[in-house]
Structure formats: C-alpha cells, structure tokens
C-alpha cells in the first residue's frame, strides 16, 4: 500500500461528509476539513490556530472539563454538543472525540468527527409536539374520541382478499356475522373524557379494552361496513350521521367520523370521532313537525275555500243513490216485482256510494294529520287527480282546462298529500285570479315536462291579471297576498314543501298575454329511492 503524504491525506479528509477537526492538546485547531467549513461557516484559514471550544462552543450535558477527563482516561468520547456556527445560529451536533498520544503516552491531538443533527432534533421536537397536540385534542375537545385497534379487522380483510373477494361492501352486507365479528375484533385502545360522558360510562375501564360491538345497533351496521370499506380503499376519512348505543343501550344520534393517518394505518389504529347531534336532530324534528302542521293548516284553509264545491261533489252521488233507491222500491212495489231492474239499480247505488266515498277520502287526505311520508309518485296522476278534485269549481267558474302531460316523466319521491297540496293551491289561485274575467279568457293550462337533470316540471298558467312586475320574488313571502280574504301563506308553504322535496317553485308572467305562470320543479326519484320507497305509482295514484 502506498503511503499518503500530508497533503494527500488532507484531500481525502475533504471528501468526507462529516466535519473532521483535529486540535492539539491545548485545544488549538490544526486540521479543518471542507465539511467543517460547510457545517460551521468558518474557513480553514480562519479556523486554524483558534481554540475549538471558544470558536464553536462545546456545551454538553456535562461540563467540558469532565468530558476531557473522561477522554484522557478512556481515549474516546461520544455525545451531543450544542454549538454556534459563524452566523451565531445554534446547532445540535453529534460528536466523537478520540485522543491520540505520542509514543511516550503524552496527549498529542484530539480528532473530532461531528455532524449537524439540528434537523433530526427539530423532527423529534415536532413529533413530540404533534403527539402533545394530538393528546391535547384527544382529551380537550367536545368530541368523543375513540382510538381503535383495527388490526384484527385488517387480518380479516386480508383473509377475504386471499379468498378472492373483491367487493368488501357486498360481502359484508351479505354476511352479517362477518360484520359482527369484525366489530368484536375492533378493540378500544383509548377513549377521552367526552366519550365517557356521551356514552354514559363512569370509568374509562368500562370501555377501554373492550370492543365496539356493544355500541353498534343493528341498524347502524351499514355505517360500520362503510368505515371498513373506506379503510380498505385507503380513503383518509369517512363521515356520516348515524345512531350508536350508550353503555346502557340507549340510542344516541351522532355525527360519526373515522380517520386514519398514514402512520396510524401502519399500526392498524383508527381514530373515531363522535359528536352528539341529538339536540340538532330534536330541533330538526320539531321544525319538520311545525312545517307539517303549517302545511296541514294551509290545506284545511284551502279546503275551506271550496267547501261548497266539495259538498256539491258529494251531494251529486247521494242524490243519485236516493233516486235509484226510490226507483228500486217502485219496481218492487209493482204487482209483479221486477228483480232485474232492482239488481241493476243496486249496482248503480253501489257505484255512486263508492264515488261519494272517494271524494270524501280525498278531502280527508287533505285534512289528515300525519307525518309526511315519502313514496314514489306519478306526477301526471297527481295532476289529473287535482283537476278532478277541483272539477266542480272549474265548472262553476266556467273555466276551460287544457292539460298537456308528457308521457316520459320519471317518478318522483315525495309526500303525496303535500305535492298534491301544491298543485291544488296553484290551481285554486289560478281559478280565483280568473273569477272576474270574461268567460272567453277563463283558461287554465297545465303541462308537465321532463326537465334538466331528470327532474319533472309542472307549469300551471292562468290568463288573469297577473301580478305587478317585480313582485315575483315577494309572492312567496309570508303574508303577501293580492286576495281580499287571503292569509298570504299558501305560496310560502308551497315553496317550503317544494324545497323540502329538493325542488323549486317559481313565478313569472305568462308568455303571450296577461296572466301568471307558476312552475313547480321536482327532482326525479333517485335509484335508491325508487328501490326503497313504497311504490304508489302503480296502485293508488291512478285516477
């Protein structure tokens, strides 16, 4: 092996990434490599001859004198130092000192290799801070947090994939036992104080160490399944509203969040956040109840506006029944009673009685007090029924009706009575708007069309005197009315019903002459609704 000269050795030192500094026994720097220049900012010529611990500082956990004594006895020291570079920036340095002696054992040089570990220190500090912040949030926030060891579920999923299952959701929906087992393998690692109060536990031990299964009602299983699917699909989080159970088995309405960080995913740990939305739910329910009450009040008020028509509509079949009955008696009172005549009269009596009952049924549905129910509805059938409902009013006001109904409408999902209420309300407004017009102008037109985004639009137009330009928006305000006896709630309620169904209701001047046009737009039922809602389309809505 060829020997290196001093200059050659120095060049090699410059190739090393660690700072290499050699100082003599008194501490004066005699060697200063390129990495030392880069680390500490001082050039070789500036550093040479300086005392190392004065130039950079040598603050360590122990006094430097102790370290030097240790070095003299052991010949080697390793540790961390705090130093300052040429700009005064504090830096953390990992250093290794070794002592070289001459042949007689007298200390000659101290060779130091060192590297800047400030960055590592910062990362560690940040990690501690993150952990501190996480713990702080975990404990202090008004959210019930659960740390769940999900690794057991992870194993179950891996076994599933190994068996060739690709659709976790379908598998779990089909195999409830799998789902329940997955719950019993979701172990609770930790919960915060808010969890104890929300779930009614006196101590942490009531929950921690157990599984989540007992907190999960059967009806919320789909939420668990979605959380597992989200985990399998490596989504960062999953949020939904659901119901969970307290330790005593009481149901609570919650906003449920599950999240994974990449780190926690490796450990198989998930974080559940649970927020109590019971108050909000109760408020919402109260508001829906109030809206339903108001809608009903409005329906009854509309009914009141045409009680005379309704009475007439019922009276007609009753009159027919009485007359048919009298005719029947006469056939029976003849010297040779004619049974065939009586039979056909009886059939008519039954048909007329049904007709009267149907009219009463429609009126009762309008007046009924019950929570709104979503079913699938055929809008055209509702329009036809509405016109039937108002038949007498339309006739007695000599209003000509034209209905143009599209045949390609999707069904909508909604409350039958409420949607009908909108149609009746709009039609009654139209009838009233035309009451004082010459007969030839009393025309009501109704048309239904399939509108953008698979929705259904129904437009009801009258040829009355319309409303003042610019009043379109105010028409829907509470207590806005153009009628002497109007309450001004009808359109307001129509709009709130439409909005509760995800739809809209708009007013504009009729195109092509005097009058008003109101368009009700409702979204077509989604596939889910079409599957889930009890279908009325094929049975009751037929007129």
């Amino acid at each position: 092996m060829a020997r290196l000269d001093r200059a050659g050795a120095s060049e090699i030192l410059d190739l090393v990434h660690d700072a290499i500094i050699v100082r003599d026994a008194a501490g004066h720097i005699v060697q200063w490599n390129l990495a030392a220049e880069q680390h500490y900012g001082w050039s070789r010529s500036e550093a040479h001859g300086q005392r190392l611990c004065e130039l950079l500082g040598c603050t360590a956990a122990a006094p430097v004198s102790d370290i030097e004594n240790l070095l003299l006895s052991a010949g080697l020291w390793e540790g961390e130092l705090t130093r300052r570079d040429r700009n005064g920036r504090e830096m953390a340095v990992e250093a290794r000192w070794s002592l070289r002696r001459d042949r007689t054992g007298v200390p000659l040089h101290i060779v130091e290799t060192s590297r800047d570990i400030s960055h590592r220190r910062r990362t560690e500090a940040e990690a501690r801070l993150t952990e501190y912040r996480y713990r702080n949030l975990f404990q202090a926030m008004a959210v019930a947090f659960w740390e769940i060891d999900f690794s057991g579920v992870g194993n179950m999923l891996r076994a599933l994939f190994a068996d060739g299952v690709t659709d976790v959701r379908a598998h779990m929906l089909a195999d409830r036992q799998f789902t329940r087992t997955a719950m019993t393998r979701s172990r609770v690692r930790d919960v915060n104080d808010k969890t104890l109060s929300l779930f009614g536990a006196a101590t942490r031990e009531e929950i921690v160490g157990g599984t989540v299964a007992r907190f999960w009602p059967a009806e919320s299983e789909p939420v668990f399944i979605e959380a597992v699917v989200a985990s399998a699909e490596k989504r960062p989080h999953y949020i939904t509203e659901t119901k969970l159970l307290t330790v005593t088995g009481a149901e609570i309405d919650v906003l449920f969040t599950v999240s994974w960080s990449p780190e926690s995913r490796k450990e198989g740990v998930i974080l559940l956040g649970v927020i109590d939305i019971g108050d909000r739910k109760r408020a919402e329910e109260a508001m829906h109840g109030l809206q339903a009450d108001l809608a009903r009040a409005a329906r009854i008020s509309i009914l009141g506006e045409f009680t005379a028509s309704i009475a007439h509509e019922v009276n007609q079949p009753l009159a027919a029944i009485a007359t048919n009955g009298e005719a029947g008696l006469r056939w029976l009172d003849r010297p040779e009673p004619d049974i065939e005549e009586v039979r056909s009269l009886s059939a008519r009596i039954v048909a007329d009685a049904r007709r009267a009952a149907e009219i009463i049924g429609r009126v009762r549905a309008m007046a009924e007090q019950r929570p709104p129910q979503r079913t699938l509805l055929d809008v055209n059938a509702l329009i036809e029924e509405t016109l039937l409902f108002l038949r007498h009013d339309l006739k007695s006001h000599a209003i000509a009706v034209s209905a143009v109904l599209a045949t390609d409408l999707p069904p909508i999902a909604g409350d039958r009575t409420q949607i009908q209420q909108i149609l009746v309300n709009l039609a009654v407004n139209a009838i009233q708007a035309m009451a004082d017009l010459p007969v030839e102008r009393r025309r009501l037109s109704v048309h239904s069309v399939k509108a953008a985004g698979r929705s259904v639009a129904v437009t009801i137009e009258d040829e009355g005197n319309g409303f003042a330009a610019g009043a379109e928006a105010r028409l829907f305000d509470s207590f806005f009315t153009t009628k002497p006896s109007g309450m001004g709630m009808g359109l307001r309620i129509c709009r709130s019903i439409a909005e509760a169904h995800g739809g809209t209701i708009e007013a504009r001047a009729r195109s092509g002459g005097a009058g008003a046009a109101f368009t009700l737009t409702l979204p077509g039922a989604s596939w889910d609704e079409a599957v889930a809602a009890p279908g009325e389309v094929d049975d009751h809505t037929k007129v």
Partner: protein
Amino acid sequence: MTAERIISVVEDDESLRVALVGLLRASGYAGRGFASSEDYLGVRDGTCECVVTDIHLPGASGIEMIGLLRALGDDTPVIVITARPEPALEREAIGRGALCILRKPVEAKILLDCVVRALGA
C-alpha cells in the same frame, strides 16, 4: 195500456241523470236523458210532455232554457232542480214560469207529484 208519456231529464251529472230517468221509468213514464240544454233543444220534437232540469249546466242554464223554449212558443212544463239553496236563482226560475223548484237530493214522491201536476196541466 196507454202509451207511456215522455218526460225529459236535463242533467249533466251522468249518474244522477240515469237515476232520474230510471225513477221515471219505474213510475210508468218513458224517461229520456240529456246532458245539456242544447242537447235537449236539438232533438225537441213535440212529443215530450214535461222537462226536469238542473239549473247549473254547461252552456245555457236550466233557467235560460225555459226562456228559450218560451221564445220558441214551446210551453212544455219545466221542473227545476237546484243543487243548493240559491234564492235569487229560484225566484228567477219561478219568474220564467218553472212549475216546481226542487232541491237535491230530490224526494221521489215530491218529484212525481210535480210530474203528475205537469201532465195534468
């Protein structure tokens, strides 16, 4: 047995019209039904001896029909049926020469008594 005497019923509600015609038939008359004044006036052939009509009809009302008949020199007796108490209309009907004013639901005996009076007149 003498030929059955013809009575016409003008009523736009089909089931009530059929019921009234049936009652007249059960009572030994030949009843004929018409859905509007115009329908009746269109087939008027002088054989009808009494008209039973609703007031509210599409087109000309029952009361207007009396005026039209009289204008044509036709004095067939007319019995008017009303759906609800409408004193003004009832007075007008009497003024135009209606023989009886009956309210729905019509009692058969009262209607038939009126018919007998109409035919005897």
